[in-house]
């Protein structure tokens, strides 16, 4: 599906992109020598109008994607067109302004448009790469199943811990309580682990990737006073290690999904700002004609 985004109908929209860029370049090259290329020549007006219409068309994809009942083309087709024409838009807008930039509302519109296009390109990259990696990471399960498994391991771990000495109980139960998955925006996007646990001896400590608690329990096994406790500790250790593996998958899953969505938090609001800046650009151009 995601590969098909770019290969949709045998690269149909790639050809649209190519034709748009080539025609745009030819139009730019047709500037007469009487005036430096700029947005005010007839070629500039044509390129500008074309780019403005394209911005409106591309923004409409946002509505089309939410309108699942629409029969006006497929969502996949619209998305493919959105990607290729979005890149073509950058060429058209750059040719329109003839790469003349300044501290003004016109360059603001251009800069916002570039931000939208760049964030969109990142979105395409994530759509093409992350779903495959997410599937590989989940090894056939979905996220809820992973959480359910973690939940069961937590229960088992807590039960086992209660059969152990107070220090192990405190360490394991607190490590289960203080296990972090996701959380803040940076934590979701980097997969940073803010887990902690408590020990009777030293209070709260970092428990990144559950390493500290596993180390704590495993180092405790040789010091066990009863044989039965050794068996509990060994079972507990096995459960803690299984928890560690599942937590790694979950954090990775959260990270992938975060990046799959993060670009939209730039793409969507800045698209709105771009349409507004485009309107301001057009109006102010003709206020001071």
């Amino acid at each position, binding site marked *: 599906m995601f590969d098909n985004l770019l290969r949709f109908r045998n690269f149909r929209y790639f050809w649209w992109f190519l034709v748009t860029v080539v025609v745009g370049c030819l139009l730019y090259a047709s500037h007469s020598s009487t005036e430096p290329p*700029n947005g005010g020549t007839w070629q500039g007006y044509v390129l500008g109008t074309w780019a403005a219409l394209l911005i409106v068309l591309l923004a409409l994809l946002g509505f089309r994607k939410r309108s699942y009942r629409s029969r006006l083309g497929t969502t996949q087709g619209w998305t493919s067109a959105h990607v290729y024409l979005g890149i073509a838009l950058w060429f058209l807008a750059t040719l329109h302004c003839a790469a003349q930039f300044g*501290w003004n509302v016109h360059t603001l519109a251009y800069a916002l448009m570039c931000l939208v296009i760049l964030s969109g390109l990142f979105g395409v990259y994530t759509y093409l790469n992350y779903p495959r990696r997410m599937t590989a990471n989940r090894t056939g399960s979905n996220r809820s199943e992973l959480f359910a498994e973690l939940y069961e391991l937590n229960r088992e771990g807590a039960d086992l811990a209660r059969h152990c000495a107070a220090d192990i109980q405190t360490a394991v139960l607190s490590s289960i309580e203080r296990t972090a998955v996701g959380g803040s925006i940076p934590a979701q996007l980097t997969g940073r682990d803010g887990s902690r646990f408590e020990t009777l001896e030293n209070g709260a400590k970092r428990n990144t990737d559950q390493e500290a608690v596993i180390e704590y329990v495993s180092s405790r096994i040789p010091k066990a006073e009863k044989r039965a406790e050794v068996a509990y500790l060994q079972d507990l250790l096995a459960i803690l290690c299984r928890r560690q593996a599942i937590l790694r998958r979950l954090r990775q899953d959260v990270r992938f999904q975060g990046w799959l969505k993060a670009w939209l938090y730039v793409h969507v609001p800045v698209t709105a700002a771009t349409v507004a800046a485009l309107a301001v650009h057009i109006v102010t151009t003709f206020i001071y004609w």
Partner: protein
Amino acid sequence: MQILIREVTKTSDGRSEFRDREFDGDALTIGAAPDQSIQVIGHGVIGHHATLTKSRDGLNLRCERGAKVQIDEDAEVSRARLSVGNTIDIAGSRLTLFDAPAGFDAALTLEINTDVEASDFEAAFVTDLEQTWLGKRSPAWWLTLAVIALGLLIPWYLPRDSLPEFMSDALWSSGPLLPAHSVAIGNDCRACHKEPFRRVRDTECVSCHASMTDHASEPLLSEVGLAEIRCAACHKEHNEPIHMTITADALCTDCHGEPDWSHNQLAAVSGFGPMVHPSFAVDLLVAEPVARGTGFVYDWKPQTSFLDEAVDQSNLKYPHDVHLDVDKVQNLSTGEALDCHDCHTLSPDDEHFETITMERHCRSCHDLKFDRRAPDRELPHGDPAEVVLTMEGHYTRMYADPNAGKPDRDRRRLPGRSVDRDRCTDPIHICAQRRTAQEAENQFTKRGCVTCHEVTVHDSDDLLARYQVVPVRLTPDFFVVADFDHRAHLTQEGASGDAACRLCHGAEESTSSQDVLMPDVDQCTSCHSDHRSNQLIPLHCVDCHAFHPDAHYAGTSTGRGRSAIVATQRRQAE
């Protein structure tokens, strides 16, 4: 604030186990997130669900927005004041206040509800960006409003003076102004953009550029449609590179490439190169005698001719070949041949030359002595009547002098000449007049004035009216409608200085001052072309021709610049 938290757990055999821990801080947080002071997982519990703070006689409970707790199995509340005995129920987990032991501000028993669905467990974690403060709709609105407000509304409605520049209508400028315009009007957009949504009018341009001339005079200007062309059609501001004058040949060749013959008869020019640019026509001055009073005066009229038929009528006799021949003429200081710059001094405009005058350029060689016995006496230059009167005065004095008839001992007699030539026994004034007439004839017809000047001899008894020297006027500008940078051409391929001058002006072969030593277009096209190439230097129409003519020539159909066009018309008609 120090709180004792006593966690109660039920073992599989129904016994209760207690685990105490201490909390030391300002606020005790309760929620599903792992960073909470008390972690409670269950249906409807959010990451940070509630906060307990110290009050005067117990604890204050405050829930986060959208979160609620049940107090004493009663109604759900979001705020409460708690005292000993109160129980907080959050998704089945219970917190009960009991009497705090010494050293604690409060004490709580905590019974965690372990009967939790896996989905509730999952919900305790923030695993989606949508669960964070990030949003799309709200930033979209704010950004849109900010762009419209800052980019359009504020610069439009608020007075410019009250705004910093980055918030004013300077934001609407699509590019830099020409520095001269920038200095003249600053950032006042409305100096040119008088009315919103209307293009800049010519009146705004000429309000400063009042002396600017049109390309042609009326009615031609209107006939060819130039009167309707706006200044801004050619002079575009706000572009980069900052350059307001269009230098492209198309500006000229669009009209002049195929001139509209119904309006005028200009030669077609489609560029600069062989066959595409017409031959040069030179602007000359011709002296025409015009009757005035009892005699006549000379009136200088412009005349334009193509080079191959041009005859310079300056009325000065000056053979360049003689003056450049080292065997005949030498520089008085160096004894070497004359250089071009001995006479031709470039003006500061680098195009024209300082006016050549008798006093400055000729007199050091050509003195005006007329009597060898009076080597200090020279005739005045420029007025023939004054010349005659000077001679008459000189000879009157000579004949009145008693020693005048005596031979000069210091001088030797010329062979075949009588030492008595100047002897006269008549009355002084008769002798003087006779001698003056002799010398005037000599000066005006044999040697002296006539060496350089054209002299008209009239059949008159009055000596003052007999000789008329045709006035001299050297052409100051042979190509009035073209500019040329002489200094830039003083160094050319393989030649510099005088040698560079002679590449274009064949002065050493010129035997007569009637020769027009101006090069034709093929001399220029041997180095220049309207297109860029490795062999040729690009040259555009405006490099030589100004679109707006000098005010001196503008609108004068008989002006000298105009005459070049008339001559072209004539040639074309033929």
